[in-house]
C-alpha cells in the first residue's frame, strides 16, 4: 500500500537534506540516552548484593523509589525501554514493508515510547504494584566496606549517587581525583571522580548526568505548556475575531511588554523555587509569542475554502478549529518549539545560578554552575556544566534552524 505524500513528509525530506540538522538530531540521541539511562551509568546502589546466602537487588528496587518525581518518570522510561525496543523492531519492519516514510515511522514509535512510559509510571505509582523498597535506609557502600569478606556487591559503571555526599577530605577536588587508600571509608571511595567533586564532596559527573534529566524535562514540559496555551488562545483569537480577538491581542501585547527572564525571575522568586514551578512559570509566560504566530496563521486559513465547506456542513466551532484549521496552522509554532526548549534550558540554568532554581540537593546543570560562580578557581565546576548546556542548546537550535529551513518553501530545492 503506497501512501500519498503529506506536508510533513515533504518537510521531513527537506529536513534530512540539511546535513547540520540531521547531525543535530543524531547528537540529541546520546543526550536523551544519558537522561534515560542515568542510573545505568551512575548509581551508588549495587545491582546485586550478596548478603550471606541471600541475594539482594537494591538498584532495581531503588528505581521505583526516588526523591524526585522527574527521576521516577525517567526510570520508568528506562524499564520500559527493552520492551519497547523489541516491539519497535518488529513494527518497524512491518511498516517498512508497507512503505511508510522514515519520519512517520519514527514519529509513531516515539509516541508509543512516551505512551508506554506513561502507562508504566501510572501503574507503578499504585503502592501495591510497586516493589517495596526495603533498603531505603541502608547505605550499601558503607556496609560493604565494613566487612568486605562476607558481603559482595556489583555496581554500575560509576558507583556514585547524585546526592551522595562525602565530607571527609573529598570537597572541591579536581577531575580524576581519587581518594588515597588510607582515607577510604566506603567501598566506592577508591573510584576516581571523573570531573572532580563539589563543595559537599558530591561527584560532579554523576550530578551532570542526573542534571540532564532535569534540564530536558524543564525544557520539554515548559514548551509543551506554552504551546498548548498559545495554540488554544491564538486560534480562538484568530477564528472568532471581534471582541475575543481584541481582548486576547491586548493580553498578548501586555505580557510581551515584560522582559521575559525578569518576569520569570520575579514569579519564581515570589512563589518559591522548585522545578515544577519553573516549568509552569516558563509555560505561563512564554505563550504570547506562540499565540501571535498561530493567530496570524489561523486568520489566513479562516478564509480558505475548506473552512467554508466545514461550516456549510454544520460542524461545531470546536471541531472546525481543532480538527481542520489548527493542524494546518501549526507549522510556525512547531518551528518555535526547539528554540523554546533551548531557551527554557538556558532560563532554568540562569535561575539556578541566581539561586532561584532547582533546590540545591537536587542535581541540575545550573546548580553545579552556581557552585562554580562562588569560586572561580574550581574550573571544572564552571566548564563541565557550561559544555553540557552549550551542547544541548546548540543541538536544539540547529534542529530549530533545520526545521525552519525545511518549512520555508522558498528554500525548497527540487526533489
Amino acid at each position, binding site marked *: 500500500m503506497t501512501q500519498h505524500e503529506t506536508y510533513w513528509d515533504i518537510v521531513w525530506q527537506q529536513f534530512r537534506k540539511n546535513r547540520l540538522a540531521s547531525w543535530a538530531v543524531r547528537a540529541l540521541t546520546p543526550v536523551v540516552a544519558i537522561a534515560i539511562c542515568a542510573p545505568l551509568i551512575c548509581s551508588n546502589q549495587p545491582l546485586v548484593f550478596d548478603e550471606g546466602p541471600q541475594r539482594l537487588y537494591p538498584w532495581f528496587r531503588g528505581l521505583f523509589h526516588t526523591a524526585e518525581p522527574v527521576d521516577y518518570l525517567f526510570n520508568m522510561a528506562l524499564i520500559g525501554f527493552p520492551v519497547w525496543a523489541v516491539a519497535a523492531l518488529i513494527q518497524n519492519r512491518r511498516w517498512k514493508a508497507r512503505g511508510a516514510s522514515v519520519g512517520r515511522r519514527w514519529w509513531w514509535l516515539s509516541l508509543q515510547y512516551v505512551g508506554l512510559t506513561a502507562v508504566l509510571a501510572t501503574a507503578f505509582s499504585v503502592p501495591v504494584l510497586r516493589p517495596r523498597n526495603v533498603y531505603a535506609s541502608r547505605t550499601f557502600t558503607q556496609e560493604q566496606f565494613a566487612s568486605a569478606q562476607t558481603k559482595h556487591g556489583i555496581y554500575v559503571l560509576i558507583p556514585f549517587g547524585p546526592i551522595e555526599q562525602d565530607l571527609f577530605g573529598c570537597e572541591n577536588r579536581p577531575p580524576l581525583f581519587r581518594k588515597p587508600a588510607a582515607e577510604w571509608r566506603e567501598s566506592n571511595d577508591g573510584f576516581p571522580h571523573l570531573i572532580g567533586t563539589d563543595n559537599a564532596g558530591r561527584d560532579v559527573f554523576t550530578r551532570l548526568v542526573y542534571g540532564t534529566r532535569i534540564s530536558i524535562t524543564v525544557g520539554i514540559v515548559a514548551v509543551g505548556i506554552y504551546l498548548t496555551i498559545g495554540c488554544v488562545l491564538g486560534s480562538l483569537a484568530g477564528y472568532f475575531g471581534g471582541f475575543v480577538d481584541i481582548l486576547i491581542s491586548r*493580553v498578548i501585547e*501586555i505580557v510581551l*511588554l*515584560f522582559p521575559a*527572564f525578569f518576569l520569570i*525571575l*520575579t514569579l519564581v522568586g515570589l512563589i518559591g523555587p522548585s522545578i515544577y514551578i519553573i516549568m509552569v512559570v516558563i509555560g505561563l509566560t512564554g505563550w504570547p509569542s506562540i499565540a501571535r504566530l498561530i493567530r496570524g496563521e489561523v486568520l489566513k486559513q479562516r478564509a480558505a475554502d475548506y473552512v467554508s465547506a466545514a461550516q456549510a456542513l454544520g460542524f461545531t466551532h470546536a471541531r472546525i478549529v481543532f480538527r481542520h484549521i489548527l493542524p494546518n496552522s501549526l507549522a510556525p509554532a512547531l518551528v518555535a518549539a526547539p528554540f523554546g526548549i533551548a531557551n527554557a534550558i538556558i532560563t532554568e540554568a540562569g535561575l539556578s545560578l*541566581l539561586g532561584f532554581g532547582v533546590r540545591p540537593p537536587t542535581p541540575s546543570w545550573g546548580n553545579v554552575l552556581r557552585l562554580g560562580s562562588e569560586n572561580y578557581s574550581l574550573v571544572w565546576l564552571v566548564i563541565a556544566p*557550561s559544555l553540557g548546556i552549550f551542547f544541548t542548546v546548540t543541538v536544539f537550535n540547529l534542529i530549530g534552524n533545520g526545521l525552519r529551513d525545511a518549512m520555508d518553501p522558498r528554500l525548497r530545492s527540487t526533489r
Partner: protein
Amino acid sequence: MWTYIIRRLLLMIPTLFGVTVVSFCIMQLAPGDPLMMQLGAGGSAGQSTQTREAFLIQKRDLKLDKPLLLNRNYFRDYTEPVRIAAHYLSLSVEEIRAEIPALAQANPTAEDVARREFLRSLKIPEFDSSLPDADQYESLARKIQAWVQVDCEDTGLNGVPEAIALLKRSDTPLRERIGAIRCLNRMVIDPFVFTYSSQPREAETPRVVSGWKEWWLKNEKTFPPLDPDRKEILEQQFATLVAEPDRGVLFEKLQEASYDRDDLPFFAHKLLDGGTLPERFVASIVLKLFVSVPLKLDVPLDASAAEVADVAANWKLHYDSQQAEYRPSLTTRCLRLFTDTQYAHMVTRLATFNFGRSTLATREPVSERLWSAVKVSAPLMIAAQILIYLIAVPLGVICAVRRGRLADNLISLVLFMLYSLPSFIAGMLFLMTLCFGKPFKVFPAMSLHSEGADDLSWVPWLADYAWHTVLPIVCLSLFSLAGLAMYSRSSLLDVISQDYVRTARAKGVREVFVILKHALRNGLIPIITLFSSFLPAMLGGSVLVEFLFGIPGMGRLSWVSIEQKDFPTLMALIYVDAIVVMFSILLSDLLYVAADPRISFGGKGAG
C-alpha cells in the same frame, strides 16, 4: 504623523492599565501577612514593640491593611467589634485565660456568644478545636491577645469614632475605658505630630503647634519664670541654630548645647507665639529632645481613674481636631469604596511615579534607588546596543556578499555558536579565564571603577571605566549580536536577488555601490525594528550579567529586591521596564516608517 503618535500614546493607556493589573497580580503572589506568619501558631509575637511598630508603619504605607478591590469598611458598623476588642485589650493573658471556659460552655450568655463570634471572625488558627481542650487555654489566650491587637491595627482609622464614643459615654466602666485607649493606640499611629518632617513645610505648622499648645497649657505652671540674662544667651544661641543650614551640624550643636528643663518656656514661646518656619522647626526639635512624651496617650492595665481621664482627654482632643478625617461625608465614603483599596492606591502610586519607600531597613526612596541603578545600567545598555549594530551589520553584509564561500561559512558558524552561548556562561568563562588569574588576569572583576578613580581627569577616568566594563558589555551584546548578524545576512540576501539590484549591476554600477547604496538601504529596514525586541531581552539578561560582574545596576537591583521581597522596588522595576519597552516599540515603529517610504502613517497602522 502627529495624529499617529497621539493615537499610539492613547492606546498605551489601556496597555498600561493592563500592566498595573499584571503587576498587582504578581504582588498578590507573595505569601500572606508577614506579621501573622511571625506570630505563628504559638501565639507569641516574637517581635519587640519597636520592630512591630516599624512593620505597622510599613504595612500602612503600602496600604496592605486595605481590602484588595472594594473597601466596604467605611460602611461597616464597628461598635460591637471595638467594644469586645477593648474588653480583651484591657485584660492580661491570665485574665483572658480565666474567661475562656465561659466561651466554651454549653449554654453561653448573649455576651459570650458575641465574644465567641468576634474571636471566630479573627480567624485564629485552631480556635474551634482548642476551645474544648483545657490544656490549650494558655496558648489560646496568648493567641487571642495577639490577634485582637492585629485586628485593631487592621481596623485602623475606621474604628476610631466608636472607640472615642466608648470613652465619651459616661457609663463605660474603667476597665473598658482602659481597653478603649489601648485600642486607639493600636489603631492610630502618631495621633499628634510634635516635630516637622525632614523637609519642613508651612502646612505642617498647625498640627505641630496644636500638640505643643496642649502640652503648654497643662505644664505652663510647672516652669519657673525665665531669667532675663539667661534669655539673652538663649536668644543668641537660638539665632545661630536657626541660621545653620546643614542638618547634621545642627544636631551636633544641639547635642553640645547645655540647656536644662527651665529653658523650655523660651522654646515653647518661640514655637507657639508665631515665628518663621526655621525658628519653629528648631524650637520643636529642642522641645522634643527634652520632652519625649509631651501628651500621654497610653495607659497601663492597672491605671487609676484620674490617669485614664487625663489620657482620654488627649484622645478626644485629637479626635475633635481631625473630625473631617474620621467622619467622612456620604459621598466621600462612596468614593472611598473604590479609591481606598490596595489596587487603587497602587495605580495612583504608579501613575504618579510616586513609588514610595523601599521596605528594607534603610527605607530609601524607591525612585532614588532606581535612578542610581539606571545611571549605572544605561551606559552599559547603550554601549552594548551600539556595539551590536556596529559589528553585526557589517558581518551580515560580508556573509551575504560572500554567500557560500569560506568567509560566509566561518562567520556563520561562529555566529551560530555565539547564538547558542548563554550570556551568563560567556560571562563566567570570561571571569574564570580573564579576571581570576587562570590563566590570565587582565580585567578586573566585581566593580565599575578602580579605587581612587574619582580623582582622575576625564580621559583616564573613561579609560578606567572602559577597562572595567568591557567584559559586561561584551556579554550583554553577544546573543543579540549573533541574532542581528544572522538576520541582516538573510534580509540582505533577499534583497540582493531582486530585480533592481540586477538592474543596477547591468547599468555598470560598481559592486561596492550596488551593495552599499542599492541593496543595503532596503535590506536594513527590517533590522531597525529588531531594536525593540533586543531591549527586553537585554533588560532581562542583564540580571545575570550584573549578578556575575557585581554591577549595581537595574538587573542586580531586581535580583536583590526579589531576594529580599522588597515589593515597592520590585513594582517600580516591573513598571519602568514595561514602559521603557513600550516606548522602544513605538520608537522602532516610527523609525520603520521614517526609513521605508512605502509605509505611511495612514491606513491601519495603529494595530
